[in-house]
């Protein structure tokens, strides 16, 4: 799930100046871009460390995304573009990647950036003494070299589709980290990167301040300061936003639909809405006899009204999911078998599988045992609990006895998910821009603690996933992943429930925000506040 964080980090970064002309032209009454002002963002958690190799939380990743840069990143359409790398070559056999680095890049402390820094970052990631959870994809590199200061080359033993984007990894400064214990480096609390913003100060538990880097290689960002205020309580954060002390936060569906629909709020803030990169699903433990029959899983999909979940749980701010990819992205296949809400069809399928109400108690049974199971979900996620309650009612209507248990996160993972000790569960996955889903669906990933915890095994899927991650051509990959989605839809090992919307809100004085498939953060350095509307002059 967290491997996607690197993606998010990249999305935060700007996509360059080429869109300027278009935006100013259609901006109409908007004033000209101006430098200055401060944006104040709320953060629920305090960052854990500002060394990207070690960070695993979203607060750290948000900040690291502005301070550091990678060789490549995703652009606004979620396609890969260069960042520190001006260009790159992929060898004929797909095994060697050669990056040509920009020559005009300096670290925030003035030292020039070179390929030695990239090589050092690679060595840091694969060093067994580095406490990072992201080493595995770099361990697949068989050879890394820096033939000259502006060239970096890596070679793989087998082609790897995600190899290129894995170099979106934040590059760490060699001159400050070499020969040191990285987990105890002062950079953890005072980072030095190459990104659009420089670190200024971090007051523990209160705030973290960044300042525009005037020498940023894609141009100086318009907004002069970024302040992250640490506000652990979401209600407090919303009050601070209303009081004008915060400029940006993410809203919940109820805040978006019911609490911000006033004229005053709309004048002061702009709300945005686009599909989030995550989905929520109901997963069946395929080791349980009752779920081994595909017809039972298909029946459950027909018995659950997923539009009702979107309307009831998300207040309509989301969409029904049909598979593990985000609608509208290249890997998503909309042409898969659909399961409209149809209790009669569900009963038919269950009857075919042998489940009928033979004793007249209102519950379906087979061989004298009623159709009954428990759905588990984790505490602290209201959307999942509510989904469970609605599903419970719908399944009861066709004679399935469902119990719902809500369990504290650590116990949920350790006692139930990792050990396979569950009937069904409601959970969510982040949708990474790269469709490689090997870790979640391959039959080799069913050991305790691995992510195919429902025990899904399908030889064709295994083959598709192996080919998909070893193929570099996008069109060819799409064929594999389209077929993969067809199989998932047919077999229903998960019932994919919904993709919620991301609901960010930004103070109205900020201009230049252009929602795109990548969200709104991708062109952050081109956001600006017109001269007359700037609020903070310090």
């Amino acid at each position, binding site marked *: 799930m967290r491997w996607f964080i690197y993606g998010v980090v990249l999305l935060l970064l700007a996509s360059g100046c080429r869109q300027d002309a278009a935006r100013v032209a259609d901006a109409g009454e908007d004033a000209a871009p101006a430098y200055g002002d401060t944006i104040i963002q709320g953060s629920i958690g305090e960052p854990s460390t500002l060394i990207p190799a070690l960070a695993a939380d979203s607060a750290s990743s948000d900040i690291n995304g502005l301070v550091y840069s990678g060789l490549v990143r995703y652009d606004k359409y979620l396609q890969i573009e260069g960042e520190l790398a001006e260009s790159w070559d992929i060898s004929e056999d797909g095994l060697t990647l050669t990056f040509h680095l920009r020559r005009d890049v300096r670290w925030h402390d003035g030292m020039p950036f070179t390929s030695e820094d990239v090589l050092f970052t690679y060595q840091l990631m694969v060093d067994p003494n580095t406490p990072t959870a992201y080493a595995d994809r770099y361990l697949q590199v068989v050879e890394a070299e820096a033939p000259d200061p502006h060239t970096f080359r890596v070679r793989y033993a087998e082609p790897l589709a995600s190899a290129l984007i894995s170099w979106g990894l934040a590059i760490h400064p060699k001159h400050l980290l070499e020969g040191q214990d990285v987990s105890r480096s002062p950079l953890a609390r005072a980072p030095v990167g190459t990104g659009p913003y420089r670190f200024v100060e971090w007051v523990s538990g209160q705030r973290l301040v960044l300042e525009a880097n005037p020498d940023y290689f894609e141009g100086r960002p318009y907004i002069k300061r970024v302040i992250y205020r640490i506000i652990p309580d979401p209600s407090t954060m919303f009050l601070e936003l209303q009081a004008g002390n915060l400029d940006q936060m993410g809203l919940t569906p109820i805040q978006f639909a019911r609490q911000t629909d006033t004229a005053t709020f709309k004048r002061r803030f702009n709300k945005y809405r686009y599909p989030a990169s995550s989905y929520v699903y109901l997963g069946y433990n395929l080791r349980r006899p009752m779920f081994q029959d595909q017809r039972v899983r298909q029946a459950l999909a027909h018995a659950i009204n997923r539009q009702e979940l979107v309307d009831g749980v998300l207040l309509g701010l989301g969409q029904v999911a049909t598979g593990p990819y985000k609608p509208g992205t290249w890997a998503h296949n909309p042409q898969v078998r659909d399961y409209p809400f149809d209790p009669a069809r569900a009963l038919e399928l269950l009857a075919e599988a042998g489940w009928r109400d033979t004793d007249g108690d209102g519950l379906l049974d087979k061989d004298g045992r009623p159709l009954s199971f428990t759905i588990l979900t984790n505490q602290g996620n209201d959307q999942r609990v509510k989904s469970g309650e609605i599903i419970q009612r719908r399944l009861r209507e066709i004679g399935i006895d469902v119990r719902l248990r809500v369990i504290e996160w650590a116990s949920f993972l350790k006692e139930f998910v990792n050990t396979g000790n569950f009937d069904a569960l409601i959970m969510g996955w982040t949708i990474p821009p790269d469709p490689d889903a090997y870790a979640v669906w391959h039959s080799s990933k069913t050991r305790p603690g691995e992510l195919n915890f429902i025990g899904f095994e399908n030889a064709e899927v295994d083959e598709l996933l192996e080919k998909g991650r070893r193929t570099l051509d996008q069109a060819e990959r799409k064929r594999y992943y389209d077929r993969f989605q067809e199989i998932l839809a047919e077999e229903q090992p998960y019932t994919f429930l919904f993709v919620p919307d991301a609901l960010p809100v930004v103070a109205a004085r900020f201009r230049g925000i252009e929602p795109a498939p990548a969200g709104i953060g991708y062109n952050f350095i081109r956001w600006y506040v017109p001269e007359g509307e700037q609020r*903070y002059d310090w």
Partner: protein
Amino acid sequence: MLHYLLKRLLMMVPLLLGITLISFVVIHLAPGEPTDLQTELNPEASVELKERLRAQYDLDKPLLVQYGLWLKRLAVLDFGDSFSQDRRPVVDRIAERLPITILINVLSIALILLVATPIGILSAVRQNSLFDRATTVFVFIGFATPSFWLALLLMDYLGVRLGMFPISGVRSLGYDYLSWGGQLWDRIHHLILPVFVSAFGGLAGFSRYMRSNMLEVIRQDYILTARAKGLSESVVIYKHALRNALLPVITILGLSVPGLIGGSVIFETIFAIPGMGKLFFDSVMMRDYPVIMGVLVMGAVLTLVGNLIADLSYALADPRIRNT
């Protein structure tokens, strides 16, 4: 006296060891580990990598060995380094949280004493009067009010609508640009709501306590004697009765010493105050064992010391105890 003190101090050592051992074992019983944040549900982290990470935190060693390692460091007063990714010393993490927690707790205890003592006395002196009943109702409402709810109401009304108080945090963002006096006022301004909310619930308990103490004392024979001597009512109440009624306060103050460093998660979260309660809560959620143990040891030491001080000062204040 010295002998007694020595005996008490010596007894604290095995007690403290017992407390640490039990705490250490209990926090490790809870499912979950500090490396979970990095590795759980992370498609990039293989099983081998998880094991490697666990070994870096000594989590692969038997529990008692881990306890032994921890105890060895504690013997030289080293609480170790936090298991969070920045690996800062536990002492640093606690030290940056401690001042604000102590400040708020001291202010709130002072506020409770200042307000609850007179309420308790007046209620007792005018037992069953309108004042007594009104304050009884009031303090019970205070006792029953959830502090997070009160805090949110005050923040919404006084902070957002009237704009009288800052909503959360301990300083304004422009703090560095304020004058010396402005900075002082800024800090006080930020403290008013949190101190009020944290004291509000405590008023009830303490004023009822004060009231019942006072009621007991004014029924004593020596109060009757004092009145019989013809002393004025105020001298009887404030000199003779009050001094005796205040004695149990010493115990309460002694018991509140460990409370000084323990914050409340709920209100620190709501007011975005970086205090000890939030630190402890976050550490428990992250399974940051060294920080949890550091806070627990400090709390245990202060509890034991607080009890000792309470016992000693009780003896100093009350001749009846001193002589037995």
